[in-house]
């Protein structure tokens, strides 16, 4: 167990954690926008899968990673529009429409993969980029400044999301619609439109989360590539108290413990692998249970809005 606390191991764990956290960050911050406006989207994993396939396929065909990223955004937007239509316009039960969207995304991504690609292939996606000067700082440089652009993007997203939510009018509208849609409506805010926008922002970010896997971190596509990460991302929104910074801590906590347990296995620490794999999940629950700063759920979360209904 002493090995674990060597510097090189700690560097390794934290570098892994940053990589692992990337898809969670994109997806969870996206979901934060949606939930802040009052819409629960459980279909994030399905959107990630279609986004992952879309970006993978474009890079496979054209070799252009930016085009691939753009494809992920477009695909995410389309899925977001579908979800918004069902959940906001048709005011469907959001938990269920999310699951339907998940099934749809899972099936569609596998179907397209099988019919358009057919076998596992690798692509050259976003490669790690060393940031000059910063990446030479001992330890810190290795951990933080030698990642691909999509990884950097995920972390930059945190302050950007915070700024949008706290410092812009749009952010105010999103929050008011999620807190008290009737009041917002009476003040002239178009509740449905705001929800559409925030759900679509969430979906586009989920698409990018998928792309971060298929054209950056893993550089391939396979059936069910995300293996349920989208659901973890949704859970992390609750962990983070609907605040981008909270979501960042949640993603980092979860990913760091995950990286830690992998290192424990590599170093031969005598703990059954299955128990090691449980650690991130156990500790996430424990961390939330023990924390006092819980954050308030948007009051209108998961409640479709109809003018005239209370």
């Amino acid at each position, binding site marked *: 167990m002493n090995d674990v606390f060597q510097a*090189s*191991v700690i560097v*390794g764990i934290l*570098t*892994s954690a940053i*990589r*692992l956290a990337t*898809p969670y960050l994109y997806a969870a911050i996206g979901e934060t926008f949606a939930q802040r406006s009052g819409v629960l989207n459980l279909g994030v994993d399905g959107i990630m899968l279609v986004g992952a396939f879309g970006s993978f396929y474009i890079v496979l065909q054209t070799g252009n990673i930016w085009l691939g990223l753009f494809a992920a955004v477009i695909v995410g937007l389309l899925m977001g529009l579908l979800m918004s239509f069902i959940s906001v316009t048709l005011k469907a039960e959001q938990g269920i429409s999310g699951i339907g969207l998940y099934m749809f995304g899972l099936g569609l991504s*596998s179907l397209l*993969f*099988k019919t358009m690609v*057919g*076998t*596992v292939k*690798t692509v050259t996606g976003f490669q790690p980029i060393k940031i000059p000067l910063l990446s030479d700082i001992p330890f810190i440089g290795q951990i933080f400044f030698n990642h691909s652009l999509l990884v950097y993007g995920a972390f930059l997203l945190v302050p950007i999301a915070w700024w949008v939510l706290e410092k812009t009018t749009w952010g105010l509208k999103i929050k008011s619609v999620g807190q008290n849609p009737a009041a917002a409506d009476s003040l002239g805010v178009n509740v449905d439109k705001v929800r559409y926008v925030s759900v679509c922002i969430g979906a586009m970010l989920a698409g990018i989360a998928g792309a971060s*896997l298929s054209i950056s*971190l*893993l*550089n*391939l596509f*396979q*059936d*069910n*590539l*995300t*293996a349920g*990460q989208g659901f973890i991302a949704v859970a992390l929104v609750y962990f983070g108290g609907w605040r981008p910074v909270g979501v960042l801590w949640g993603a980092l906590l979860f990913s760091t413990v*995950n*990286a830690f347990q*992998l*290192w424990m*296995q*590599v*170093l*031969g620490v005598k703990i059954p*692998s*299955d128990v090691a*794999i449980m650690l991130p999940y156990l500790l996430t629950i424990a961390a939330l249970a023990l924390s006092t700063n819980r954050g308030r759920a948007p009051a209108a979360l998961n409640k479709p809005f109809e003018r005239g209904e209370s």
Partner: protein
Amino acid sequence: MFKRLIVVLVLLAVILTACATPTAAPTTAPAKAFRIAVVMPSATTDMAFSQSMWDALTAIQTEMGGTSALEIKFSENMFNVPDAATAIRDYASQGFDVVIAHGSQYGSSVQEIAPDFPAVTFAWGTDVNTFGMPNVYAYTAAAEEGGYVNGVLAAKLTKSKIIGVTGPVEVGDAKTYIDGFVQGVASVDPAITVSKTWTGSFSDVALMTEAAKTHIAAGADILTGSSQSVVGSIGAAKEAGNVLWFGTQQDQASLAPSLVVASQVYDWNGMLKEIIAAHQAGTLGGKTYTLQLANNGLKIAYNSGYALPADVKAAGDKAIADIIAGTVKVTP
């Protein structure tokens, strides 16, 4: 409220049944085509267990002359056993000559269904139990044998003396392959560290990739592993640039042409051809096949894209010969 659903149910059934043309018969193959149906727990594209059987079937189909000589129908992603049982029974009742239940979890289904279709050959794996039935074959792969050979090769090639194993869950042929690998390494140099990680999932590519990267960061210069998610490990090896890979179940050279040293390939061809010939001659089952190096069911596919030193290859070939001769015994 539930009234609504009874009505929906009835109306749907009525409408769709009305739309059904009475002559919606399944496509009949031209006379004399041999018909094989296969039920698999994962996708035909999984670069692992299911794909190995699928590739063998399609190769035989081409060899025999195409779809007019051999008709293949498949159901993939049948990880739900009762659904697979329905599929197996359905194919059997459609008059397929051979129904392959390509998943160890399908055993009890085969046991129940086979007696109802005495003219159909059922082949299931990986397991060794034919239930004493005359129309059932069982098949398995002695993955530990190829694991041993890979281990010998890896032990000879490693410079850092650290080898990483990225596994899914420690069961089935993932376990037996890795057990054999560890023995192979130990037979060359017991001082080499083989460290193992298990991700707890057969499909989590992201975690498998991170596991591989962790091994590499800890000093491993050779990696191996099993399951469809190892495509992630191979990707990690590629990114590191100088980490070598040993594969199993499928020839994985295409994923990293300069870094894959060798793969243990499950070659079902021989077994399938025997089963087809036997069926045509009137024998429908009653035998257990084990893919081994000795019967060419397991092959070590050296990657021509990797320049393997002659003495290392010789050591690998010797290990193969020893296993075949029985002088080396690999125990899972």
